[in-house]
């Protein structure tokens, strides 16, 4: 049997070779692109070969010794979740790598692009297969580094690579972002979360002495284990939130969502792979990996642990629900195709967090040691996982289409796009397939998985969050239809289509997104025919999650209403833009209310501005204060002390002028003092 290690090691080795050849001065484009594509293909094939074994119940676990004293080894842990994730990651990466070979052709950073792309794939696969927290952290930071480098890929900051309307300000803060700025934002926002993750690691290690995830899982349920200890200290909820900060930041959940929006300065395939299909899912993966562990611990221990853990899950569900809704509203008014998709990504990730949070929240009020509730928890977690998969597929397709659309008109604004349906039929079909999946229309894959998440929220009794999720579903249907109709079916607002020689995408770009869009449909069709059971079966061989089912979706009552509502929103958007052709620009000029609402959404609820004013501004103020204090310290040592010493030296110099009478006087005086001292000491 092949060591699953090679799933993540192959892309790393390829990236290493690229680094060496780059240093040696080799710049041949096809060498880099094919090495990348091939290494990822090898990973995908190995993952595919190994998955059936996991599916039939064997967890594949290989360990190579590294630092055994602290439970840190090169351990590859391929359980249900690991296999599931590596399949999704490796195959998507492969398709997007193929797309990139064409998309990046002739780019001045071609070699750098494929180096970081491949390095990213290795890191992402390591992340999902790591058996201990340090290895997971290495993969985690590796994806962060690649993301930083690729967001800032066009670091010369030419205006066509920006995000946002040049010159726009909100509350005095610039609302346009150059690639180099976006890169810094991405790495700093996520770094804050990563520190939380490190702290969580350190806390667990301080209590257990190990960093191995299976061991941490085993110790979670013990009555003197780390969860019980932390619950006794009354900090379990806070601890788990801090531990999950990395996941929240990586997956752009409120209040960390801002970095993902501006990450769109990167080349579009990067947005598709890193900022839609995989890296931003790392946070979700982290939740999927640890939620069962926390839940099992809570279910076994009950009492204070259970209360703390359900509070924690409630916070996760809440943040997910808020993010889902908030980001969807922003997508309604956005004028940039990739931004619409970015808002949508954060929003959909919110659904996944809502699903995991709700699943854990099901435990609330359960008796210690109950297994019935646990199986419901597993069901909710599996629902989130399935949404991760379906979202990865359709969102990658949407981004890849967007890449071609932007390339076709040399503009990121949808105002410049229109009537594409005339020139690119297959792209149009792909867009509708993937878009309807995002909109949650049956039988597309997005429908089933989103329904599973909403079902879990409903079951957990989180009515308000459920309602928020339902409303968001309608908004989602509207904004994606709006984007599709405006790009493909009506005339562009600004330019005329004749300005560009529009035509269908070349095959190397067309095929990947057509395959993905078709997959969204095929998965959706196969879903009720046994595919969902297969996914659940695989996920049911996961650490701390020995069985799983996916929520069964029945077309009755509330489900039917949600579907009807989503369909209505799709139709509404179609009719609105095709038949009524409303003059929104004119409306904004006339109505103040409309303008206030528009600006609120367009400027992203002013959250970016507030972060810049308070947090960035606060630190900038601190920098000034510290700079001033530094000046004072410097002046103390290099002005005050020398001045005092010079003055003192001059004063003493005054006493030494070679006058014998003066010396004699001093001599007599001090002899007198000495005698007096002696007298008082012995007298």
């Amino acid at each position, binding site marked *: 049997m092949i060591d699953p290690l090679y799933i993540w090691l192959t892309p790393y080795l390829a990236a290493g070779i690229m680094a060496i050849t780059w240093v040696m001065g080799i710049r041949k484009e096809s060498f880099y692109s094919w090495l990348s594509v091939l290494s990822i293909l090898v990973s995908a094939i190995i993952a595919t070969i190994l998955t059936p074994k996991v599916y039939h119940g064997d967890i594949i676990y290989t360990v190579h010794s590294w630092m055994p004293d602290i439970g840190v080894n090169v351990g590859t842990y391929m359980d249900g979740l690991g296999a599931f994730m590596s399949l999704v990651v490796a195959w998507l990466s492969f398709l997007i790598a193929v797309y990139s070979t064409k998309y990046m052709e002739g780019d001045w950073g071609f070699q750098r692009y494929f180096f970081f792309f491949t390095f990213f794939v290795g890191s992402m696969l390591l992340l999902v297969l790591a058996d201990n927290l340090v290895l997971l952290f290495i993969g985690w930071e590796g994806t962060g580094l690649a993301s930083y480098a690729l967001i*800032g890929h066009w*670091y010369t900051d030419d205006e066509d690579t920006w995000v946002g309307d040049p010159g726009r300000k909100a509350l005095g803060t610039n609302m346009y972002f150059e690639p180099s700025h976006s890169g810094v934002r991405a790495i700093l926002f996520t770094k804050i979360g990563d520190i939380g993750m*490190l*702290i969580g690691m350190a806390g667990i290690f301080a209590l257990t002495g190990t960093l191995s995830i299976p061991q941490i899982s085993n110790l979670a349920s013990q009555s003197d284990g780390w969860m019980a200890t932390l619950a006794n200290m*009354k900090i379990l909820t806070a601890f788990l939130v*801090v531990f999950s900060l990395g996941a929240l930041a990586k997956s752009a959940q409120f209040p960390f969502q801002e970095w993902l929006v501006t990450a769109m300065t990167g080349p579009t395939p990067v947005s598709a792979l890193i900022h839609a299909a995989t890296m931003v899912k790392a946070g979700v993966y982290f939740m999927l990996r640890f939620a069962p562990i926390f839940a099992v611990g809570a279910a076994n221990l009950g009492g204070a642990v259970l209360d703390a853990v359900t509070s924690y899950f409630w916070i996760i569900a809440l943040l997910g629900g808020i993010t889902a809704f908030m980001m969807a509203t922003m997508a309604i008014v956005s004028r940039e195709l990739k931004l619409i998709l970015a808002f949508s990504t954060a929003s959909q990730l919110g659904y996944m967090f809502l699903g995991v949070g709700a699943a854990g929240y099901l435990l609330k009020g359960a008796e210690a040691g109950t297994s019935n509730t646990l199986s419901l928890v597993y069901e909710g977690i599996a629902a989130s996982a399935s949404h991760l998969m379906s979202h990865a597929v359709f969102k990658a397709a949407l981004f890849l289409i967007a890449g071609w659309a932007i390339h076709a008109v040399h503009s990121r604004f949808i105002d410049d796009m229109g009537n594409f349906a005339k020139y690119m039929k297959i792209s149009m079909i792909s867009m509708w397939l993937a878009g309807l999946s995002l909109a949650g229309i049956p039988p597309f894959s997005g429908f089933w998985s989103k329904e599973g998440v909403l079902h879990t929220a409903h079951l957990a009794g989180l009515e308000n969050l459920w309602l928020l999720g339902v409303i968001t579903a309608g908004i989602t249907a509207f904004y994606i239809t709006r984007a599709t109709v405006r790009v493909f079916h009506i005339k562009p607002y600004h330019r005329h289509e004749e300005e560009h020689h529009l035509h269908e995408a070349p095959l190397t770009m067309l095929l990947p997104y057509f395959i993905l869009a078709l997959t969204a449909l095929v998965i959706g069709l196969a879903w009720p025919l046994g595919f969902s059971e297969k996914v659940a079966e695989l996920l049911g061989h996961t650490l701390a999650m020995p069985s799983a089912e996916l929520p069964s979706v029945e077309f009755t009552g509330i489900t039917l209403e949600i579907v009807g509502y989503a369909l209505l929103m799709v139709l509404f958007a179609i009719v609105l833009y095709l038949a009524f052709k409303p003059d929104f620009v004119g409306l904004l000029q006339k109505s103040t209310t409309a303008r206030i609402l528009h600006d609120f959404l367009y400027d992203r609820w002013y959250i970016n501005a507030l972060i810049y004013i308070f947090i960035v501004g606060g630190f900038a103020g601190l920098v000034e204060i*510290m700079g001033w204090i530094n000046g004072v310290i410097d002046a103390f040592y290099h002005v005050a002390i020398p001045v005092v010493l010079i003055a003192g030296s001059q004063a003493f110099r005054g006493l030494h002028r070679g006058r014998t009478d003066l010396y004699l006087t001093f001599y007599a005086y001090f002899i007198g003092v000495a005698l007096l001292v002696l007298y008082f000491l012995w007298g």
Partner: protein
Amino acid sequence: MVVLDTSLLWLSVLLPVIISILGVRSEKYETLASIIAALLLFPLVIVAVAAIKGSLSSGIVDPAYTTINGIGTLAFALDGLSALVVAGISVVTAFVAFYSLPYMKTRIEEMRTEGEEPPSLGVYYLLYTLFAVAMVGLVYSTNLILFYLFLELTLIPSFLLIAYYGYGDRKRIAMLYFVWTHLGAVVFLAGALYYGYIAGNFDYLNIDTLSPVGNAASILGNMTTLIAALMTFGLFVKMAVLGVHMWLPYAHAEAPTPISALLSPNLIGLAGYAMARITVPLFPDFYTANQWFFIYLAFATIIYGGLVALKQTDFKRFLAYSSVSQMGYMLLGIATLTSLGITGAMLHYLAHAVGKAVLFMTAGVFITDLHGFRDITRMGGLARKYPMTAALALVGFMHLVGMPPTVGMWSEIFIILGLFRAIDISAQFILITLLLIVALGISASYAFINMRRIFYGKPRSDTAERAKPESVGILQWSMLAIAFFGFLFFLWITPYYDSLLTAASKIVQILQTVMG
């Protein structure tokens, strides 16, 4: 403990000096630099061989040692605690010796055109080698007298190097550097002499077991606190901890860049090493009693240094303040008083040595190629012209921020693991979490914000705009070599880590008797 058959440790210190004395009048600078660089790499080879053979845990001792009554045993030794420090010095000094070749040629020429007569490159290499081996000797030492001799020996050549070849008001800055750090050294010496006077010898390592001589409180009685405070304060000045960091920004910014690349990453960290090696095991009561003061001081140093670094516009001055901040991490690791934390601190020495050396060398590339170009506000977009330098600078910053695949990740993890062993999680979890987020967040901020200011965006001056594409040469290759070791130590940490943890736990054992 293993006593070596041949005097390898002494040879690794003396040979480079002999060669550089012989070569001081030679004009074949390429040959001279190559030989010196090869010899300076010798300590690393010793460390690596010892690690592979597994003799680091018990430690190795040079056969040439002598015991003098009233002084103690003057010996050279190498063990887990010192191995990575020696490795850090060896890697940096060896490749910076190569780097110096083009850099100092340019510098000396530049000074000549300004009408000055700096000493020749041969003199430079003599002083450079003395400085480098003095640091290695200091780490090998097992006795306070030997330690102090080497400490002074690091000061004199580095002082002369700044005075001869530095920038700006270099004579004044050299004097300033000398006076302040010497003051620190003398305060340390006062404590050390007092200690030796009472104890009857100056040993801090037991030569037979290579373990610390143990708690000095029983010998020193009520003088313990005073002596501990004197020695610690002296080391704080050398380490440039917040409050006594005043000398560092001047010296590190205005020294010739290869010397900055030795001063900043190598020299100041040695004070941290000395704390773990000498003062913590000698004065466990002092350190446990003041543990929280040291932890807060460490955080204050990290945050203060980082924030002031963000304000700097001069590339080298920015790096200097970043060094102040990074020393805070070393102090933090030591102040945890746990074996994990001390392990982290020593790993941080190595990580900072590699990372900061590469960054100073980056600054040096622009100073050499673009005629003293070091104003960050006028940079921007340099990655387009200098892709290799930019990539290496990114690796340098990753060491400081603790990102894999650099050894910086290990130091960050170990320091934090140690910190959480040291604190009372139930009461201090939130406080320490917030402090860490602010501290590490600021470090990441100054790293990536300045990466952007220097390398990305549009050029902000004619100099940056018109820069010719880099011609990859000795400057970049030596940076690459140093950076590569940062990656190598990331992967191949196990043999060092085991013996380091062993050595650190010897120190912690002494602490535990005090903490109960």
